[in-house]
Each structure stands twice: as C-alpha cells, then as structure tokens.
C-alpha cells in the first residue's frame, strides 16, 4: 500500500481507539445509560475494510467497528450522541450506542441479533442489481467468531453465494465470544474453511498487522467489485478489552495475551521504523483525534435529551394507519 493510504489508515485507527477510550470514560462518568463496547485491538482490521468502500456501497458494522464506522462516514459527534442518548442525531435517543447507523449513507443500523445483518446487506445488493444500480458496488459486513455459528449467518452466506452477490464478509476471529473461547464455538481448523462450503472466495490475514489487513481487504473488495462473487476474509486477533466496559475479561489467559499484539502499537512502530512517520507525526494524529473528540463531547453533552411528551409513540411510518386506533 502507498504511504498516504498507510498513514490514513493509522489516522483512522487512532481516531477509533481515542473515541472508544473517550466513550469508556463517558461511561465511567455516568453519562452513558447503556453499555459501551470497544474495538480495542481490532482497529487495523476494522478500518482496513471500510477504507476500500466508496459512496454507494453498503456497510454493516458490528460492535467492534468503531474504526470502520468512522472511515465510512460515522463521526465522533454522532457516536457520542447515540451513546449518551441525545435527541439530535439519527436515533433520537430511541436506540443507542452501536445500534447507530444511517441507511441513507448505506451504513446499516445493526440489530442485536447476531448474523441478522448479512441477509439485509444481500437485500441491498440484490435491489441495486434488479434496479440497474449495482455497477461495481459491494456490500461489506462484519461478523465475529461467535456469530459465525448463528443460523442467520449461514442462511445469508449461502444466499449471497447462490445469488453471486458482491458481498464481502469480514470475520474477526478474536478468540472469544463474550467469555467463551473458540473451542466451544467452533471445531474446524479455521473459520475460513467454511468459505469453500458456500462456494465463496476466501482470504486470511493477521488481524494485528495493519499492512496485511490493508492488502487483504483491498484484495477481497476488489474481487467482489469485479464480479468474482462473495468473498470471506478471516483474521485472527485478540479482543484487547472486556466484552463491554462492564466486563473485566478476567477469563482471557496470559497465554492468549502473549500470542497477540496490539495492532495499533504495532502499526505505529512499523511506520516509525520504516520512516513513514515519526514520533511527532504520530503524536499529532493523537492530538488531532483527541481534540476533535473533545469538541464532539462538549457539543454532544450540550445537546438536548429526548422529551417523552414530544414522542408520538407510533411505530408506523404511514400515519393514516394509526389514526384509526381508538
């Protein structure tokens, strides 16, 4: 990858990490009503996927994709608003934290049921194809090792393969599903072994190696764009945080920790060693990230909360349908 892509990648990783850290702090400060989930250790992989998307593509991130979301068009203010439940922003305090999204942007707002987003991405792609707007657009969907075992995931991956949709499924095998280790989650050698069973292309990479993530996601998305059908990418890495901030992850063993580095520290070191950026350049990225987040925090905290009396408590968009209710 060229230097500017690598530096941009680092910038997004840093912004993702800084935002997650700030959200955790807001949680500790009592500002966040719900949970805070972090992508710590997964920023390189997450950001790399979204970096090769373009306007008109569709992206369905999950709980560890703060970085990827930011790349695709989410921004710190929206992330913070949604966590602290302001009525500004897309979700208006009705839904929170990682459920945010913007369908107009192609950024799908996830539901919690794991695996449910994949077939929805399929639907956006099929609709584009049927109405002649597919061109070389793709859909990218994120999934964890645990969620690979839901029925929804299976049905959707097979569906994408049968329809030969330009779907890229980005699997983050981070060794755990909440507290459950992979050996209680799947019994195959590597989750990438599932690709052949769907008739999908496949790629793997070291999820802690930023350059490998960039190259691999670039390749996968390029393949999907040029009509090679759905692609599965599997990266191994380690979740470097609790499942949420409420979880101390005491179950993660030292042995596991010894096997995986922090993608962000590794990337900073590599880029420094290679002379791509120096210490002060990195410090500037951090300062910039923190500063922009601080601005967003200040603004978000000042924004109004939702007011129950203003709600019309109606789940239908066709208002005429509800007028009949007595």
């Amino acid at each position, binding site marked *: 990858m060229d230097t500017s892509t690598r530096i941009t990648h680092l910038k997004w990783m840093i912004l993702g990490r800084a935002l997650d850290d700030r959200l955790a702090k807001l949680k500790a400060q009592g500002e966040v009503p719900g949970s805070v989930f972090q992508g710590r250790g997964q920023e390189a992989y997450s950001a790399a996927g979204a970096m090769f998307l373009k306007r008109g593509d*569709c992206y369905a991130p999950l709980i560890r994709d703060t970085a990827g979301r930011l790349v695709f068009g989410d921004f710190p203010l929206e992330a913070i608003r949604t966590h602290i439940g302001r009525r500004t922003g*897309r*979700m*208006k305090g*009705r*839904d929170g934290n990682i*459920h945010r*999204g*913007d*369908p*107009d942007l192609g950024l*799908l*707002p996830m*539901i*919690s*049921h794991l695996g*449910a*987003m*994949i*077939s*929805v*991405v*399929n*639907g*956006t*792609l*099929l*609709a*584009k194809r*049927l*109405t002649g707007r597919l061109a070389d657009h793709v859909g990218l969907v994120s999934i964890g090792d645990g969620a690979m075992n839901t*029925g*929804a995931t299976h*049905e*959707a991956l*097979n*569906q994408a393969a*049968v*329809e030969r949709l330009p779907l890229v499924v980005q699997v983050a095998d981070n060794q755990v599903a909440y507290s459950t280790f992979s050996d209680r989650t799947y019994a195959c050698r590597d989750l990438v072994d599932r690709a052949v069973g769907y008739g999908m292309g496949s790629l793997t990479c070291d999820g802690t190696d930023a350059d490998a993530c960039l190259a691999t996601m670039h390749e996968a998305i390029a393949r999907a764009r040029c009509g090679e059908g759905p692609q599965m990418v599997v990266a191994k890495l380690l979740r470097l945080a609790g499942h949420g901030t409420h979880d101390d992850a005491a179950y993660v063993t030292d042995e596991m920790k010894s096997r995986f580095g922090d993608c962000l520290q590794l990337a900073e070191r590599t880029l420094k060693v290679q002379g791509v950026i120096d210490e002060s350049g990195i410090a500037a990225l951090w300062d910039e990230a923190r500063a922009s987040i601080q601005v967003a925090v200040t603004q978000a905290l000042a924004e109004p909360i939702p007011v129950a009396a203003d709600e019309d408590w*109606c*789940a*239908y*968009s*066709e208002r*005429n*349908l*509800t007028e*009949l*209710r*007595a």
Partner: protein
Amino acid sequence: MKYLEAIRLALGEALAEDPRVFLYGQDIAGTFGGAFKATKGLTERFPGRVLNAPISEDAMAGLAVGAALEGARPVVEFQFGDFATIAFNQFVNHAATTYWRTGRSVPLVARLPVGGTPGGGPFHCQMPEAWLSHHPGLVVVAPATVADAYFLLKDAIACQDPVMFLEHKYLYYHLEADFDPRRAEHLGLGRAAIRRPGTDCTLISYSGMVHEALKAAEMLSQQHDIEVEVIDLRCLRPLDTETILASIARTGRCVVATEAWPFGGIAAEVLSVVASQGFRWLDAPPVRLCAEDVPVPFHPDLFAAHHPDAERIADLVLETVRF
C-alpha cells in the same frame, strides 16, 4: 375469479406498474409457479424479477428488509405461514423496528399461506397473526374475499410499512366470485368491512372464518329472526376499533370467531377493546369462539371439531342474544 387468481392478478399488475417490485420465495419461479401456483406465468412475463430462494426463511425476510431499505418493493412468498416462525426475528426485530429506530420505512410484503385444510396437520395449518401482531411496527392483513385478496395485496405492496399478508389456503381454490377490479369498490388498508348489517349482535371474524360467520348469520336470520351484523376485520393490525365499537354501540352484543388458538389471539385483543372501550353499550358478555387449544389435528374429523363452524358460531350468538 378465484381468490388465488386475484392474488396472481395483483402480483402481475404490481410487477407491471412498478419496476421496484420483485418476487422472492421458494419454488415460485419458472413454469412451476409456487406450491400453490400464485406466481404461475409471472416469470415468463417478468423475467429476472421472480426469484427462487433457498430454504432459508430468515435470510428471505432479511433480504426483503435490505431490498426495501434500498428502495425496492420486495414481495416474499413463504411456502406455508407455519414456516414464518423461522423468519420471526427478522420480521419483528428488524422490519418492524427500523422505522421507529431510524426514521426509514421498510416497505416489504410477506405473503403467508395460512389456515387449515383437512389433512394438513399441525405444521401446515397454523394461523400466525397473534405472534406477528404483538410487536409494534408490522401491518397484518387477512383478506376473506376475492376482491380483498386483490385490493389489499395491491395496497400492501404500495404501503410504506412492512406488511404480513395472510392468504387463506382453503380459499385459494374454494372461493370464487364475479369481480372486476375496475368496478369493484374497495376499502383501504386499516379498515374493517361490515359484510352484513344487523341489529341484534355484532359477529366479528376475518380470513376463512368470515364465511362461517356469514353462514351463521344467515341461519340465525332464517331460523330465529335474529339479525347479526357481520364484521370482517380485513386488517388485523392496526385494528379498526372505530368500526368495531360503532357496531357494538348499535347491537350491544359481541361475538368473535376465529380459526386461531384463543390465548392472546386477535379474538382476545378484540374482546379487550370491546370490554374496555365499549363497556357501556354491552348488554351481554362479549365472547369468543376459537380453535381448540391443541395443535391442528391431522384427521379430518378431529380437524372439523378443532375449528369453529357456522353451527357452533350460531349457538354462541344465540346464547349471547338470549343472555
């Protein structure tokens, strides 16, 4: 025209009128045209817009959500409504919540063949409306007539909100009516119809059971001079409580007859509305007649006993009128 033909007509017109419409479901494409033949001939007329799905109901529903978000108008056929259990999550947690959570509508239609046929057994005869209508956000429609099969399906496809469209399997081939779509009158989505006016009791039903209700009303008129007002709900969610309550205000009595199980079903919802909002008009307890509270039996004799019929409906109305 038969009920099934009315559905096919509506699908064909929707495909012709709106390029955003496409059909997706198991075995619906090609010359086969679906387990019940609702889509027969449509692949030839609309190539590439009638697609066979794998046996993956969750992904069928999910795909429809995504396509709807992307501006298409997906119409998904389930082979039997009983299999919508597999798509339950996508329907109630995804299709139904997206508008409220994000402000974006999800205009999809799921066509569900429902209801009992003798010999169909526990897994091909169910009525899914109770569990599709509890969560807020889905429109649930259940046409009882040939005209409604046509008009309500067209309305459903035009609707901005996700619609569960319940087609009664028994009516597919057994219900036939003279029907000219350009002439027929039609009530919109969300309105109940008074199928027979009356003054002595309000009898509420929907889907296949409407025909038993009408038979019961005719029997009561002939044999007992009792004039029953028969309401066909048409749309189960939202419920047209206005029409229901106005009728109760006139008759003072209410019987609900459905083919579904009683517990927490549409009949329970109607009775609650009637009891809580129509109490002052009631001259007798509002009551329901539903299916027996066990799975739908395979043997036709058990099946017949399991389902309400005109006679038993008439008995209950009589009891209510004589209260």
